[in-house]
């Protein structure tokens, strides 16, 4: 306030700057900030990704997290303030998980025909992924709570958070590990399938999609959908199957332990 007494010639730019800072302080404190920033960064990331033929390493989720995380850290905005806005997007994960019933229903004929095979594949792939992550981390001396948070890594993030909570892990870490597993799968799947000699037949697309959905849930499914509709549908199926099956066997195994 005392500054008002200073010469009126106070630089116009200075006033503009002060106004800008004030406006920024106001805007960055409203939930609008987190929500808009998330959508804006993602939309740009998606546009770049599509512009460059969906090169795996340009994955929009990966880069959105890097850009937003760096921006928060650089601008000194607490995560809680960001999340106050971003939670509106986060909230949609619940209805999105419910809506996975749709791919399951649409594929019910195949699901019935291959019920045993698909269930075993989801259980086997999910269990190998979960237990090898836990065992390796444990063996490398990672603290127990962190190692436990690795167990639901193949399950879609909202479900993984609930599961981690139930088995003595850390919900936020579980969500991050799930997202990272999704990204790793999306980035490496093509190479892995190529090395394994997977072709482009109907059954090969089914296996590729189903495997990607099993270990890399929604992010893998999004990736599979970009490559082939057949693969995408099976990835959606696997993601839903994994959400259901892992929710059953993980708590049971840990209880028994």
């Amino acid at each position, binding site marked *: 306030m005392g500054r008002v007494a200073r010469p009126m010639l106070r630089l116009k730019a200075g006033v503009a700057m002060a106004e800008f800072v004030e406006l920024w302080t106001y805007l960055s404190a409203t939930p609008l900030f987190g929500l808009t920033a998330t959508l804006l960064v*993602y939309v740009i990331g998606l546009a770049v990704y599509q512009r460059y033929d969906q090169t795996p390493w340009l994955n929009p*989720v990966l880069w*959105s*997290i890097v850009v937003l*995380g760096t921006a928060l*850290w650089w601008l000194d905005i607490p*995560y809680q303030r960001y999340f106050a806005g*971003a*939670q509106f997007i986060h909230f*949609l*994960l619940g*209805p*999105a*998980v*419910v*809506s996975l*019933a749709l791919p*399951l229903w649409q594929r019910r004929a195949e699901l019935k025909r*291959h019920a045993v095979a698909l269930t*075993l*594949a989801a259980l*086997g*792939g999910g269990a*190998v*992924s979960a237990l090898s*992550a*836990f065992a*390796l981390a444990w063996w*490398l001396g990672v*603290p127990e709570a*962190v190692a436990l948070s*690795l167990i639901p*890594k193949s399950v879609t*993030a*909202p*479900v993984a*958070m609930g599961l981690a909570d139930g088995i003595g892990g850390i919900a*936020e870490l579980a*969500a991050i590990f*799930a997202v990272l597993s999704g990204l790793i*799968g999306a980035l*490496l799947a093509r190479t892995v*399938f190529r090395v*394994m000699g997977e072709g482009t*037949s109907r*059954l090969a697309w089914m*296996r*590729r999609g*189903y495997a*990607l959905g099993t*270990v*890399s849930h929604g*992010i893998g*499914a*999004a990736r599979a959908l970009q490559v082939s509709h057949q693969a995408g549908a099976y990835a*959606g199926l*696997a993601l*839903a199957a994994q959400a*259901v099956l892992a*929710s059953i066997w993980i708590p049971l195994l840990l209880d028994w332990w």
Partner: protein
Amino acid sequence: MSALIGFTLLLLYQVAGEAIARLFALELPGPVIGLMLLWPSLAIAWVRQHVSEVAGFLLSNLSLLFIPVGVGVILHLELLSTIWWQVSLALLVSTLLGLMTTVWLLRWLIRPSEDEAIGSGGAADAKAQGGRGHG
């Protein structure tokens, strides 16, 4: 309007799922129970039609929904910085093993000419591989 009804339906199923999880103290997450409740109801054309309107949008933008939680990694950078390579290695190796196991299992369990060409041979292989996958 249709999309709105669809979204309301999804939320109602989620609420029902959460309620059942609490009431029966189930370990299953509410949305997963909601999924299992919604699945049979999709046989009703009215439900299916309205749900498809929203489900298409939600599922095709699914990866966006992970970003808010993913950004939360900045809260745990200190903890993760001490064990980053162990965790990265565990994530990398387990994801590769999981992908390969799933593909192997499916190769053994579902043969190209599955309908009648393969009889007992396929089933025996399936059992062998299934056992290995779990072991």
